[in-house]
Every structure is written in structure tokens, then in C-alpha cells.
């Protein structure tokens, strides 16, 4: 067994072109429109003192409208929407806001509809991983979170998902 390489902060100087134009729009892939309900997800990312964080990287990974992941580990992946990659990247603006256009994911066996999030930033020595849900329910990942904190993983409205790295209403992050 080999030891997995140690993580490090992404630092402040990743190149501006690290975030390609359109990388936060998952509704179109190679010029073709994905199936399903197009939605927008947005939110603000803050640190302990409430300061909004600019130029922070958010990446997401999710199933398509039918709840299928575009990956061979999914037994149904042959039926995945060919026009949906399921991955996107955004950077936060000067007000700490990120935004994605995507497709509302379908449920999978044993899992409620959800979107996996990853946060990378200067001063974050390791990638932080969390999961956004559309509603409360019996999802095993959501149930793993202490009951009092679960509501922090459920998007508000159409669809707002704020991420607090530390402090009041701190977003639950997962130890994987």
C-alpha cells in the first residue's frame, strides 16, 4: 500500500484562468443541452468572523436528472444523460458569492437528491467536502450529521446554499 500524497492549500495565486468561462454551467455540455429541470444554486462563503471570501474555488459533483452518475461505478451509467457531465467549478466574487446553473439531480437507490460540494481556498490546508440537499429526509449522509445541524445542509428557496467555514452556523463538513 502506498501512502496518499499530503494535501496542501491551493494558495492565493492559482491562475485566474483556472476557472474556465462556463465551468459553472452544467446545463450545457459540449454545446448540447442536458435533460431535466434547470436550476440555479448560489450562496455566500464566509470565514469565522463573517467576512465574505473572494476568489475561493467551489466544485460540485452530482447525478443527472435520472439520478445516474456519469461514472462506471454506477451500474446504470450506460443510461446516463450524454449531455450532462455532472461536474462544475466556480470562483466566489468580491462579495463572496458563487453561482452554478445545473440540473436538479434525481434520487438514487438509498440516497435523496443531493449535490456534492468541495471548497478550496488560501489558508485551507485541506479540501473541505460537504453535501447540499433539497429537503430534509432519511438520506444516510444527512442522517450522519447531528440533528441540530442538518438544516445547514438544506438549500433555502430557489436555491441558496451558504457555506460558513467556521463559526456561527458553521457548515457541517465531512471527514472522509
Amino acid at each position, binding site marked *: *500500500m502506498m*501512502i496518499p500524497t499530503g*494535501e*496542501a492549500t491551493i*494558495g492565493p495565486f492559482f*491562475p485566474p484562468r483556472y476557472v474556465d468561462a462556463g465551468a459553472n454551467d452544467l446545463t450545457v455540455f459540449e454545446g448540447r443541452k442536458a435533460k431535466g429541470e434547470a436550476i440555479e444554486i448560489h450562496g455566500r462563503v464566509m470565514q469565522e468572523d463573517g467576512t465574505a471570501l473572494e476568489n475561493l474555488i467551489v466544485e460540485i459533483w452530482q447525478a443527472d436528472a435520472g439520478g445516474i*452518475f456519469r461514472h462506471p461505478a454506477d451500474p446504470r451509467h450506460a443510461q446516463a444523460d450524454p449531455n450532462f*457531465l455532472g461536474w462544475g467549478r466556480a470562483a466566489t466574487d468580491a462579495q463572496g458569492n458563487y453561482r452554478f446553473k445545473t440540473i436538479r439531480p434525481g434520487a438514487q437507490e438509498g440516497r435523496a437528491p443531493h449535490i456534492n460540494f468541495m471548497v478550496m481556498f488560501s489558508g485551507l490546508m485541506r479540501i473541505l467536502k460537504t453535501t447540499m440537499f433539497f429537503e430534509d429526509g432519511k438520506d444516510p449522509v444527512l442522517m450522519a450529521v447531528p440533528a441540530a445541524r442538518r438544516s445547514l445542509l438544506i438549500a433555502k428557496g430557489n436555491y441558496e446554499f451558504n457555506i460558513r467555514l*467556521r463559526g456561527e452556523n458553521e457548515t457541517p463538513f*465531512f471527514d472522509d
Partner: protein
Amino acid sequence: MKMIIQPRDERTQPARIIAGYPQTPLRSPKEPLVKRAPTLSELSGPLEVAKRVKLLGGDIAGQGEKQAIGQLIHLRVRVLDEDGAPVGGAVVEMWQANAAGRYIHPNDDDHAPPDPNFYGAARVVTDESGVFELRTVKPGAYPVPTRDGWWRPPHVHFSVFGRVWLARLVTQMYFPGEPLNAQDRILNAVPDAAARDSLVARYIPPGVEPYNALVFEHQIVLRGRAATPAQP
């Protein structure tokens, strides 16, 4: 292609809060991280990122009149999983300072001159043996704005997409024999000495191709093992 991801030995990973790195205590969670059993969602991941992002070639030192200033180096990096199996087709993003220790970035206006012929970033895909190669110049060291004597040693940033979401990695590679390595607060945040050493590239004595660049080899190990290892 089912992958198994097991918890890492904490000593092989950096501390989240580092004395003398003032941003770290503001940005790392205070609450304990939540343990979960990975499901298909975390044990799958984007395999076709190269179709979404623009690839940038592996020659960032430039050619002809557009050559960057600095010591020409050739990096040969192999990406493996925890079984030691090569991870082919992986998108790797790389960025670094120029030879003077300056990044092409609006936030880096501190001290050192820019090099108009050096953008300092690449985005490549590993071959079937998990290898990618980069022709670049050796990055310079630079002082950190803490202004308390911390300088970053020469280093290269890598962002790697593995086969599954939980294998995603952002890391930094260092150069052997650099005196600043011993005091760097980021490199030394990894407690285990062997894990720290594995972040330092290996210098390959001249005599191999390419003849006109100093060659460094490095290895990146992504999390995960195949659920069904390949038969010998």
C-alpha cells in the same frame, strides 16, 4: 471500476491550523468533521473534466524568442493510486511562480519582477502509465506577507482529478536540497517525516534526456484502491 477509499493516517496529512499562518485558524472548521460511510455518490466522480476545461500544454518555459528566464527544468511526474496502479487519463492542473518568485496574479505585486514570457500554468492529462511531463523553469522562493521571516521555498502547485470524488487532490511539490524547506510552515505541517519527504521531488543526475534541462521526478499518490485489483 469500483474504488475503495479508506481513512488516511492523519500524520501523513497537514495540520489544518498552523502557527504563524494567520488565515488558517479563521477558515478551518471548529466543529468536528462528520464521519460518513461513502456511497456511490462520493465513490464516483468526473472522468471527463478534459472535455469541460481548456487544456494548456506542458511546455510553459516557451520556445525561441518567447523563452522564459530561469533554470530550465523538466518534471516527470507519475500519478498512482494506493495500490501503486497508474492513474491514466487524469487531468492535472499545475501552477508556479517564475524564476524570481513572482506569480502572474493580480494579488502578487510584492517584490519580484514579472517575466513576460512566463505564464506559469499548465493543464495536462496523464498517459496510460499515469505520467505527465512538464518543461518549465525552476520557480523562485518568495517572502510571505506575514513579514516575519517566512519564505516559501521553491514549489509547484498541483491539482489532480482522480477516478472518484474522494480522490480529488490539491498539493504542492518541493525541490530537494533547498535550505528553505526546513522552515516552511506549509511543508512542515505534515507531521510524518516520510510523508513530508514524499512531497519533495527527486533530482535525476544529468545524462538522461532531455540533455538541456535539469530533470526532476516526482510521484503523486491519489487515495483509493481498486475493489478488484488487476490480475498479474
